[in-house]
């Protein structure tokens, strides 16, 4: 898998993780624990994506990232059936939609990767070598062009994910706090 694609998958998982962690604030206890576990798992998986040649635990991760999609729809339906306003208020649509979108990106990326590998195994062909780019060992120095391409790719992915995550966070309780100037915190002197 191309290093840039692998890093983008990691970004998407980290973005979804941050939104799920932000949803912990103001959620009822049961839901808060679920969001915290989900966010922490997405964080761990995203970080491992950066550090490995292949995204880790691909089959499990594929199921896991689809879990929130099914989970929050089921919880929303159950809450509306039980007229539980606490739960429906905690399930804010915009952050959940964006986190689900990011999880779906991970799911599609993983599914394509697994299918490509299966096809390669079936045809008996070895996988094409990834270009020896900037993620390789320092003993094999990358060219300036490949370094620039790698950093631009990482930067572009980070910008897209940051834009989506920011939009999601702005609709959570964590993102709706007033600016630091309006908080008037004791002992806080701004410069």
């Amino acid at each position, binding site marked *: 898998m191309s290093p840039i694609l692998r890093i983008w998958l990691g970004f998407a998982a980290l973005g979804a993780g941050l939104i799920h962690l932000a949803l912990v604030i103001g959620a009822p206890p049961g839901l808060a624990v679920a969001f915290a576990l989900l966010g922490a798992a997405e964080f761990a998986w995203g970080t491992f994506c950066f550090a490995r040649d292949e995204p880790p635990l691909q089959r499990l991760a594929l199921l896991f990232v689809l879990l929130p999609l099914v989970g929050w729809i089921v919880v929303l339906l159950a809450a509306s059936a039980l007229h539980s306003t606490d739960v429906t208020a905690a399930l804010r649509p915009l952050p959940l939609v964006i986190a689900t979108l990011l999880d779906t990106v991970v799911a599609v990326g993983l599914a394509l990767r697994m299918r490509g590998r299966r096809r390669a195994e079936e045809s008996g062909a070895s996988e094409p070598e990834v270009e020896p780019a*900037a993620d390789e060992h320092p003993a094999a120095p990358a060219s300036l062009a490949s370094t620039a391409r790698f950093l631009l790719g990482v930067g572009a992915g980070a910008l897209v994910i940051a834009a989506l995550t920011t939009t999601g966070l702005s609709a959570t309780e964590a993102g709706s706090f007033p600016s630091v100037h309006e908080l008037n915190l004791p002992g806080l002197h701004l410069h």
Partner: protein
Amino acid sequence: MGSSPNRVLGTIFGAFFVAIGIWGFVLPDGGAILGIFGVNLLHNCAHLLIGLILAVAAIFGGVASARTVNTIVGAAYLVLGVAGLFLLGTPVNFLAINAPDNVLHFASSVVLLAVGLGAERPKAKKPVTR
């Protein structure tokens, strides 16, 4: 140096953090960087220190030191980005963190971690076969 993603990124981020650290010091009392990002004296000092560490490791150290520092600073920012969500509006928010700060910390952390962990990784040693 130009062909090492970790050294290039460390230099860029180091210069960026030093610049915003200095910018924070020249802001009028109660000011925010770009009118958005909340800072205070401690926050400015942290920006300066982190920027210097990143830049020194990238410029004067080798690939390994730039990679290590990028990863450590990225991990620290990730922790701060997540902790910041829970610090907003509390009296222990001693770095004057606000919501835009959290986004910036998170964005910085993922880029530093992605390059620190994902670029120029040492190859695993193959077992010796006899």
